[in-house]
């Protein structure tokens, strides 16, 4: 399964057939820090992803200088 990461943009391959939370744990990503996007929808941590899925892990953190 392909996972697209941002900042910087890159792609990694991981095994599918398991829950989103297990994929995040393997990539050492805290669920609170990303949106998990599949196509045009968000997926929750308990959903099972397939080998042919493409997930985007979009970081939600903004920082530095807010007004």
């Amino acid at each position, binding site marked *: 399964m392909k996972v697209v990461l*941002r*900042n910087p943009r890159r792609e990694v391959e991981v095994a599918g057939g398991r829950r989103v939370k297990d994929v995040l744990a393997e990539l050492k990503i*805290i*669920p*609170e*820090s*990303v*949106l998990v*996007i599949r196509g045009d*929808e*968000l*997926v*929750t*941590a*308990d*959903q099972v992803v397939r080998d042919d899925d493409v997930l985007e892990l*979009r*970081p*939600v*953190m*903004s*920082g*530095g*200088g*807010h*007004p």
Partner: protein
Amino acid sequence: MKCRKCGDRASIELRRHNAAFCVTDFQEFFRKQVREAIRKHRMFTEDESVLVAVSGGKDSLALWDVLIDEGYRTTGLYLDLGIFDYSVESKAKCEAFAAARGVPLLVSSVAEEVGAPVPVIKQVTRRPPCSGCGLSKRYLMNRVALEHGFPVVATGHNLDDEAATLFGSVMHWQTDALPRQSPALASTHPKLVRRVKPLYRLSERETAAYAFFRKIDYIVDECPFAKGATSIAHKEILNQMEEASPGAKHNFLFGFLEKGRAAFERIEHVELHECVRCGQVTTGTVCAFCKLADHVKRASAEGAPTA
């Protein structure tokens, strides 16, 4: 996972609320939190025009979107920081948003007002870029609001921003900063407009989800100067705490606002004057913004690049 309200398949889980929502019910939850923030802190009324500071990011555009939807009279303010392609792209996002919704957008350029864009200010002052940038933004937001007759400026600060700022202030026991941390800062001088943060009850994951569901085209890439910023490090620490104990960020911030802040408020006493140069409010004789502009001018006269 099922939506807490309608029982359909959930699209987002909010562990701190021990809840999950479908797309429609999450948006209603989000709007309710904004309404509650505005009501509780009397941020503004339906009769007032609100200047919304927008950066092209998820928080400020989500805020603008909600306020328009709720029927408020709003105008956007984009501050052009001159940070390479990042500023070009973020300005385009704000302009596209304003055009699509038929709402006005004001633009103010830091390079024109200070004499140089943020990357040059960073070089000239030899201070972290967020320092000169934040100073310029706070000053210009207030000045533009005054010039155009807005009684209030709304910013997209979310729960994570506020918790990280509080964390930083507590780590250094900055007792002068603590009383100023509030979802709504009243006008304490005729030349200071009210500043409010209607998203302070919502985490940045929630504002990102709202922007995604509303198909808001925002800039996902981070400001090139944010890498290594202390506020990011504090957010990461707080997220680890949140992972171990959902609700930790909420409890930290709301506990301070409800129980701690008043204790620091009592000991703060600041006398405000008008800057002898620009007339804006300052605690000294010449304001920090004019000092920054002087610094840039001097460096430019000595041959440093200002473009």
